[in-house]
């Protein structure tokens, strides 16, 4: 009787470069996958392709000029980026922001959350393989939202609308009606996405139990935002450290169960519903009044040697601004705590051991925008 074990095949691991030019629009991001057959063994991300030195540039610009730069650090959710910055300046300058400005800021930030999540659905749908339908639906909805932003601030994506103390100018007279119109169309968009993807068996088969990250691991890595809540961690800055008037409106915080790709998708879908709820409550409570404090200095100067860290719940997570003042009208140091960079740390852990096709979906589900990762 001859016992012979089959020879061990010496296979070489393939190195696949998912290059800076991506088939699905996440921006310029490069990851190198080491693949054994179909299974990912190692993943090395390369970032920095979109670094423009925004933080350094802000050191030479005063507190009105810096708002334009903060837009560009997260262009899909620019209102939220501007918000953190102006809140930091207001905290150091001890400015009292009038109520009307706060309500309008809240409405605009939540509308921006809607448009950012629509963008996520579009790109994610293309990643999963639907030929282009979710992407076009996403842009259809974003178009209505962006048209509204253009009527308010003049620009479709880089608003430069918030100022330290309030807003740059008043919203147009038909603001409430326009927001209601936009909400109606966004509801239809959310319904379309829900019907298209959530119960689709193939979608579920592709996304369930793929790219799982546990709650402990997520907290250790420093994730925040929807990706963290999808793992079951109940952390929403709007509830734990309420800013603007979030403690005066009612909304729920959706949580996931498994921390897989499907949960991240579903949590964002539910967050959009909650955002629309918040916007409606804000519209009811919106009152007339000034949008800038009365005693507003012409050139804002901050006291010397002060520092503050302000964080807000941007659509992608905790977007924080750390501001150190040196006594003039320019900051000494402005540091942006980027949510996407921290969330991206989890990519390797989520992808190792999964199939190559899933690595793409996992990257899409973290919802990164490279301008925030690289600043």
């Amino acid at each position, binding site marked *: 009787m001859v016992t012979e074990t089959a020879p061990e095949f010496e296979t070489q691991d393939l190195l696949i470069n998912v290059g800076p030019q991506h088939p699905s629009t996440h921006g310029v991001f490069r990851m190198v996958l080491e693949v054994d057959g179909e299974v990912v063994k190692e993943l090395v991300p390369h970032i920095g392709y979109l670094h423009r030195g925004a933080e350094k540039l802000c050191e030479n610009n005063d507190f*009105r000029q810096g*708002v*334009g730069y903060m837009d560009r650090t997260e262009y899909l959710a620019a209102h939220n980026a501007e918000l953190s910055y102006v809140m930091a300046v207001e905290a150091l300058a001890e400015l009292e922001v009038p109520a009307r400005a706060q309500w309008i800021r809240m409405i605009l930030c939540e509308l921006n959350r809607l448009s950012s999540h629509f963008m996520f659905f579009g790109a994610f749908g293309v990643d999963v393989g639907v030929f282009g339908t979710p992407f076009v639906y996403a842009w259809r909805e974003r178009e209505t939202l962006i048209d509204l932003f*253009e*009527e308010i601030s003049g620009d479709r994506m*880089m608003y430069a609308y918030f100022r330290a103390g309030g807003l740059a100018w008043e919203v147009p007279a038909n603001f409430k009606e326009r927001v209601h119109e936009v909400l109606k169309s966004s509801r239809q968009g959310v319904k379309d996405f829900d*019907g298209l993807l959530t119960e689709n068996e193939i979608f579920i088969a592709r996304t369930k139990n793929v790219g799982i990250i546990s709650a402990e691991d997520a907290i250790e890595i420093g994730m925040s935002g929807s990706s963290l809540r999808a793992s079951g961690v109940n952390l929403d800055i709007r509830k734990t450290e309420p800013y603007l008037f979030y403690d005066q409106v009612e909304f729920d915080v959706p949580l996931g169960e498994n921390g897989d790709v499907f949960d991240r998708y579903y949590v964002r879908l539910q967050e959009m519903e909650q955002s629309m709820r918040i916007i409606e409550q804000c519209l009811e409570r919106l009152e007339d009044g000034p949008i800038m404090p009365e005693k507003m200095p012409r050139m804002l100067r901050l006291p010397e040697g002060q520092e503050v860290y302000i964080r807000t719940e941007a659509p992608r997570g905790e977007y924080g601004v750390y501001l150190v003042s040196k006594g003039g009208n320019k900051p000494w140091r402005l540091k942006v705590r980027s949510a996407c960079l921290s969330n991206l740390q989890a990519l390797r852990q989520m992808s190792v051991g999964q199939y190559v096709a899933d690595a793409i979906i996992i990257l899409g589900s973290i919802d990164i925008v490279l301008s925030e990762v690289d600043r």
Partner: protein
Amino acid sequence: MKGIMKSLAVTMSTFIRGPVTRNYPTEHRELPERDRAFPILLWDQDIDEPFCTGCHACERACPVECMTVLMKDNPAHESQGGTSKRRKIVDEFWIDYGRCMRCNICVEVCNFEAIAMNNTWQGHEMSVYDRSDLVMDLPQLMSQSKAEEIQEWVAD
């Protein structure tokens, strides 16, 4: 199977809804009043000279330093026999549209309401073959307002 049927139903409903395409460049949508393209200078039609006095306020306020301004004594001032109240007037003005970030700060700081953001389609359709063609000089900046082609919006 039910989920797939639902997806098919959603796409069929959009099939029936019809296209939402706006056929650019055959049709241009109407821009809102506050639309913010690139800055242009305004022309005072009553006195027939620019509002801008060349005071450098916008040049200093610009975050990206895209403007260059030169001022001169106004030959049309009352002291010289003219009708204008402006002692100084702009001599040369360059804006590099390639650097401008359209943040509106120059409009906000101007004391004379002499500069405004272009809210027409000409402000958006700015394709050139050479980047240096994007540096606009004074006649180019004033041409639209001189020809009364715009209804500018300046925030109060």
